[in-house]
């Protein structure tokens, strides 16, 4: 496995090998699927749409619907206006969504298609909506596309009517439906009225009933998106993902905002609960206290199995930072933290974390890739890998256990239903990490050292 990866690091400035990021449009498609009765629409060649639907379906093991402008060479020369016009008509005729959320591709961006103009000129049936965002694939990553699409919905729909609704606007970050459910549960327990955008729970984890429906029950409603402009405060979870739409909403509708790390681990969840407490002025209910206490219990009981274990964490920036936080809380050393998504803030935040916990000798890198991470590991190995499916090659090559967290996890089931956020999510992560490390101890030890009780 990966035998051709040399141990010796070389000066590599251009060739990207085994990436930890993909392109903007798939993030936009994911965000749009978190809006109720929305058809995500890819304005480009049909291959993009096909690839993105496959990527999302493989991760969620659930249908990911989306349509395409199906560019041909002619459209690429003369512009995609007529394709989009036809597409909008056909989508409303055949699939009858409430809203179409258009995102662009590197193709339509390179030829400079004017989406604002096209959408203004499009024939949209009474009461139906078309919104768009620009998602050039050659800028940022899928994370960029995700927050651009959220901002796109706000740009077209959110309004400040002058009458506040008393609600919290919540941007959940690039997380699974299971995480969104957990965030909603915690907000309800805290008595917080909220509007969450997007909300893929009930869409990409919709139940099997024997009847397929193109638009399942989940997703943020259009009236709620409009009403975002009347929220008291925005809470953006995942600072590198949610600040952009939070700032956008503030500029458009004067909703002040606050950002926090994804609530992964103890202190990050504490910060989320404290923010909800300050917002709702409600006391923290016993149910949440109990969960937190259980988590404390578990981490104390098991700390000897995680203490000083080294871990390499790769994936999306906010997820990696959250996982580094919980790793540090468990006494582990996040030796390598790598994201493929560009942005210097990632390295700053990762280094601040290390400083906070007084840990040295770790490396954080933005715009990195798995090839380089593998080379680092070859030179100085770790006890554990945390990240998405693509890490399984490195895990196998170096015989290191892999805990699958984040995007994409395309080779396992159930993960998207289960949270990694909140105290409950931290309990789950503790179990995943402990099982990986302890199974390894059981597998590797001598017969006489196999412990019946651990």
């Amino acid at each position, binding site marked *: *496995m990966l*035998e*051709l990866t040399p141990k010796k690091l*070389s000066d*590599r*400035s*251009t*060739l*990207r*090998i*085994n*990436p930890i*990021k*993909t*392109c903007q*449009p798939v993030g936009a498609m994911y965000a749009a699927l978190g809006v109720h009765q929305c058809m995500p629409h890819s304005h*480009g060649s*049909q*291959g993009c749409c*096909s*690839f993105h*639907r*496959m990527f999302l*379906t*493989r991760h969620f093991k*659930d*249908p990911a619907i989306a349509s*395409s*402008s*199906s*560019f041909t*060479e*002619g*459209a*690429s020369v003369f512009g995609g206006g007529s*394709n*989009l016009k*036809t*597409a*909008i008509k*056909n989508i409303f*005729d*055949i*699939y009858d969504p409430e809203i179409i959320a258009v995102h662009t*591709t*590197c193709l339509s*961006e*390179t*030829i400079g298609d004017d989406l604002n103009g096209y959408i203004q000129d499009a024939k949209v049936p009474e009461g139906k909506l078309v919104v768009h965002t620009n998602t*050039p*694939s*050659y*800028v940022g990553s899928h994370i960029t596309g995700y927050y651009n699409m959220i901002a796109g919905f706000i740009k077209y729909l959110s309004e400040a009517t002058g009458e506040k609704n008393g609600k919290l606007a919540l941007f959940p970050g690039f997380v699974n439906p299971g995480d969104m459910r957990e965030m909603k549960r915690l907000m309800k327990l805290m008595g917080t009225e909220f509007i969450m955008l997007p909300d893929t729970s009930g869409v990409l984890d*919709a139940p*099997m009933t*024997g*009847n*397929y429906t193109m638009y399942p029950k989940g997703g943020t409603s259009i009236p709620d998106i409009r009403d975002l402009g009347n929220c008291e405060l925005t809470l953006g979870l995942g600072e590198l993902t949610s600040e952009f739409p939070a700032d956008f909403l503030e500029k458009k509708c004067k909703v002040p905002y606050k950002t926090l790390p994804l609530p992964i681990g103890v202190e990050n969840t504490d910060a989320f609960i404290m923010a909800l407490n300050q917002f709702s002025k409600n006391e923290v209910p016993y149910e949440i206290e109990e969960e937190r206490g259980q988590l404390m219990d578990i981490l104390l009981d098991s700390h000897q199995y995680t203490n000083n274990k080294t871990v390499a964490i790769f994936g999306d920036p906010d997820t990696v930072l959250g996982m580094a936080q919980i790793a540090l809380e468990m006494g582990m050393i996040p030796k390598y933290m790598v994201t493929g998504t560009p942005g210097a803030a990632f390295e700053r935040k990762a280094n601040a974390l290390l400083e906070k916990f007084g840990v040295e000798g770790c490396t954080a890198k933005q715009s990195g890739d798995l*090839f380089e991470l593998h080379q680092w590991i070859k030179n100085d190995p770790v006890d554990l890998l945390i990240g998405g499916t*693509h890490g399984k090659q490195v895990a196998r090559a170096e015989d290191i256990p892999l805990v699958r967290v984040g995007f994409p996890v395309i080779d396992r089931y159930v993960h998207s239903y289960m949270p990694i956020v909140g105290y409950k999510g931290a309990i789950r992560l503790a179990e995943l990490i402990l099982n990986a490390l302890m199974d390894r101890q059981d597998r590797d030890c001598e017969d006489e050292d196999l412990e019946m009780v651990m």
Partner: protein
Amino acid sequence: MDSRDKVLDKYSSKIYKNRKEHVIEIEAGEPQVIAADTRAIPGIMTNRGCCYAGCKGVVIGPLKDVVNIVHGPIGCAYYTWGTRRNKAKSDESTKDFTQYSFSTDMQETDIVFGGEKKLRQAIKEAVEIFNPECIMISSTCPVGLIGDDIHAVAAEAEKMYGIKVLAFSCEGYKGVSQSGGHHIANNGLMKYIIGTGDAEPQKYSINLLGEYNIGGDGWEVERILKRIGYNVVSVMTGDGSYADLKNAHTADLNLVQCHRSINYIAEMMKTKYGMDWIKVNFIGLESIKSSLMDIATYFGDPALLARTEEVIAEELDEIEEGMAYYKSKLDGKKAAVYVGGSRTHHYINLLKYLGVDVILAGYEFGHRDDYEGRDVIPSIKIDADSKNIESITVTKDEANYKTFHTPEKIEELKAAGVPIEKYDGLWNDIAEGAIITDDFNHFETEEFLKELKPDIFFSGIKDKFIVQKSGVPSRQLHSYDYSGPYAGFRGALNFAKDITMATYTPVWNMVQAPWKSEPTLVGSLGGME
């Protein structure tokens, strides 16, 4: 109104006019005409992919000793990394790069100022790190638009590093589906690789074309061919290599599995090297048997024929009991098959053998000849979208041209039923009354599911869960749901086992909650005791 009309009637007049040519019901009598290989309608949720997917994703991606650099923004390289199950294995002399994804990861400045410099640097780095014998470059949408001359960069790199460097202009917007990409890939391999090796010809040697080793299919086919006594010179392209492909011209015969994606190479090799090709199908017992007999008949050696019969008997013996069991579980069921450009046809006889009738079928990107047979090729009008895909012409290579049989012998073999340069298409095996949907889309899938109620549905990942959520067992025939191989005798047994499992998994009996069908309020009336 029949099912076809009921479904099509829901379209607006403009779409109806287009789709009615693509959706037909098989009737007895004259061969039917179907519209195929035309552009998808914007907004219709087609299952098709793009030109790049057909070129890099399908044809050149599996070549294991090639560093495939995708020139473009990151997505296209990312999505074709390890997602197609074209298994490959390295050996002492052949490197395997299929575990890697290589991209120039173009940024905004590259789009504005051009990406050639970046591509040159990426090639330099690939050479320094991996020292490959061959690099292939695939361009994605923006590259064609900004005018990067990837062919010039390739030529320059080839000279500079003394290795083979090929470029493929397979931008996603070209053509109408993956199909254009297959053609572009075929042209490149034919122009620059096939025929450049100097291996000694071997006895009874064949190339296996259009076999991508999904789930190990190619390995299973090779195992059988080697048992009989054939020498496999190259496989195009599953577990294939640049090293083998160079010598493909030394083989005696080309076997074509996936007609749609590779018939161009088969035809061009006939013209250039005189090599005959026959259409084979290693899926399904009857098809394998007749394909193996056709190959043996072509070579005409009585020992080879006897050995073929012996191997068939032994292989059948191994699986017969299992096949009979699964047939008893599947007999009488109805299936829908929607895949690719050849694969739908390949599975019809296997399903028939298991007692399963195909009532709904179609291709994602097939051409008319894949449906109606190659005889219609002269009458196919190529539209503007596909005219942009180059059709290259090759000429006789005097030094390497050889014919295995005289023209008279070829005619004799053809008359005896050996499918030399012959493919009769889906029509040859599909049952009367079946509905055929070309470039099938989400709407038609959903509607025909309701109308025709198949017991099992075969297609790809995008509609797998749509179908399953409707309550119909669904298996992917692109990826075999991470199972396989399905080719060969043993593969047929795997397939039968998998679809029996999909149909009978205990969950199907539990989908409906008891409170949906049973009373939920239970109590006794007061004073009855």
